[in-house]
């Protein structure tokens, strides 16, 4: 049997953070598949068309389901439109937030920025802190002590993951952070990745958010109905399950502390509805390796690179058949992780400088 496991420190200001730097895992060079520059130049081209179309469909569906919910309010039939509204509000906003944070969804910068702010509000991720947190996630993907977005630190908190279906694990924490930011302060971890010149924006935005939510709560109290909160506030919780379903497929159960996205990200084929809601983030290895490629070209990028990638998962069924047992196993043995296999046509994996030092 293996040696005793020492619990790792996933915070950004603890022992593993220092160790990551010492091992050369922080801000390191990552593996990138080869692709002709000419082809990449074609793939990174930005267009407004796809994102305008998808955003228009998104808002039309939000309005339609919200109107149906209003008309059916008071009957059980209202559950159906609010389920749709919730997913569009609390889950589809996740991928809009993500793509617009990279400013790749639209060609026009202000369009990315406007949709980014709206989606951040819906998904309850403060726009400035999360932009920087996500930047760090790309610098140090699943590097313990460096990446603030490791979804399931080992041993995984299964109850917490289940609670995240309705944003009950992270949601309250986010609310507390918003309140903290209203007072003009950041958490210790945020201090490590939000530059000084950006901090005033965090405080300003937090105050705007609190004001909007206070207004909606006041209207709900004034009208004696939770209906206003069904449109703003609550859908970030009751509609979060779909983003979790997609989002868990990205990294959970895979290797930590490697410098090769093929080993710590998954590409999963998904149905057209999920791909619309998720804005093609199912091509997650490709996105991490080449974040300049807009979502609407990721399927094409995947075709270019698949000879150099692990075999993609055929769908949710296949991926959850791997994730669920892996999580249960990691509860008992936190050193366990799923080793992604590269095909014979691929260049060798680049586990990184820490490979020799890792305890796994």
């Amino acid at each position, binding site marked *: 049997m293996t040696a005793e496991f020492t619990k790792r420190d996933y915070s950004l200001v603890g022992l593993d953070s220092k160790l990551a730097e010492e091992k050369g895992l922080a*801000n390191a060079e990552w593996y990138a598949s080869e692709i002709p520059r000419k082809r*990449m*130049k074609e793939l*990174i*081209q*930005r267009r407004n068309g796809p994102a305008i179309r998808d955003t228009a469909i998104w808002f039309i569906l939000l309005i339609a389901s919200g109107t149906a919910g209003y008309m059916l309010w008071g009957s059980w039939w209202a559950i159906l439109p609010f389920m749709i509204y919730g997913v569009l509000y609390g889950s589809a906003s996740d991928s809009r937030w993500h793509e617009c944070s*990279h*400013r*790749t969804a639209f060609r026009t*910068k202000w369009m990315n*920025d406007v949709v980014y702010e709206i989606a951040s509000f819906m998904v309850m991720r403060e726009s*400035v802190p999360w*932009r*920087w947190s996500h*930047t760090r996630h*790309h*610098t140090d993907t699943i590097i313990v002590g460096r990446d603030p977005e490791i979804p399931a630190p080992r041993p995984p908190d299964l109850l917490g993951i289940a609670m995240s279906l309705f944003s009950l694990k992270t949601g309250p924490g986010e609310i507390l952070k918003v309140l903290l930011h209203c007072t003009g302060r950041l958490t210790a971890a945020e201090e490590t990745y939000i*530059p000084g*010149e*950006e901090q005033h924006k965090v405080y300003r935005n937090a105050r705007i958010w609190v004001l909007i939510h206070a207004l909606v709560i006041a209207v709900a109290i004034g009208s004696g109905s939770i209906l206003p909160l069904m449109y703003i506030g609550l859908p970030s919780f009751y509609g979060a399950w779909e983003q979790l379903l997609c989002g868990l497929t990205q990294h959970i159960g895979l290797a930590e502390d490697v410098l090769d996205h093929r080993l710590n990200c998954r590409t999963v084929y998904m149905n057209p509805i999920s791909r619309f809601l998720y804005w093609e983030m199912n091509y997650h290895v490709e996105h991490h390796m*080449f*974040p*300049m490629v807009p979502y609407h070209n990721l399927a094409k990028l995947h075709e270019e690179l698949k000879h150099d990638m692990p075999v993609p998962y055929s769908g949710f069924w296949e991926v959850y058949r791997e994730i669920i047992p892996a999580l249960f196993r990691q509860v008992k043995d936190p050193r366990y992780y799923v080793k992604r296999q590269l095909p014979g046509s691929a260049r060798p994996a680049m586990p990184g400088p820490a490979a020799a030092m890792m305890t796994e």
Partner: protein
Amino acid sequence: MENWVQVCQVDDIEAEDVIRFDHGDRTFAIYRSDDDQYYASDGLCTHEEVHLAGGFVMDNIIECPKHNGRFDIATGEAKGAPACIDLRTYPVKIEAGRVVIDIS
């Protein structure tokens, strides 16, 4: 004092593209816009020191390959987080079909 250094032939850079140019222990990014203007800047992104030559030029903006930080290739102006610090730019001229930059 001026210090003009030869970089490459004008055609060594495609329209709307960038190349890396190392000189001594310094590294530069040399750009050609789609209307054949040439520009030069420090070669490393001011965010996390990634070579900008790995990025792409679109609409006179160089986009960093690491976190999509953007800079104006003519002025070096940072165009928003995570690119918050402007790039240093250098004068460029074309002499006998060659791109020459002043790295002083």
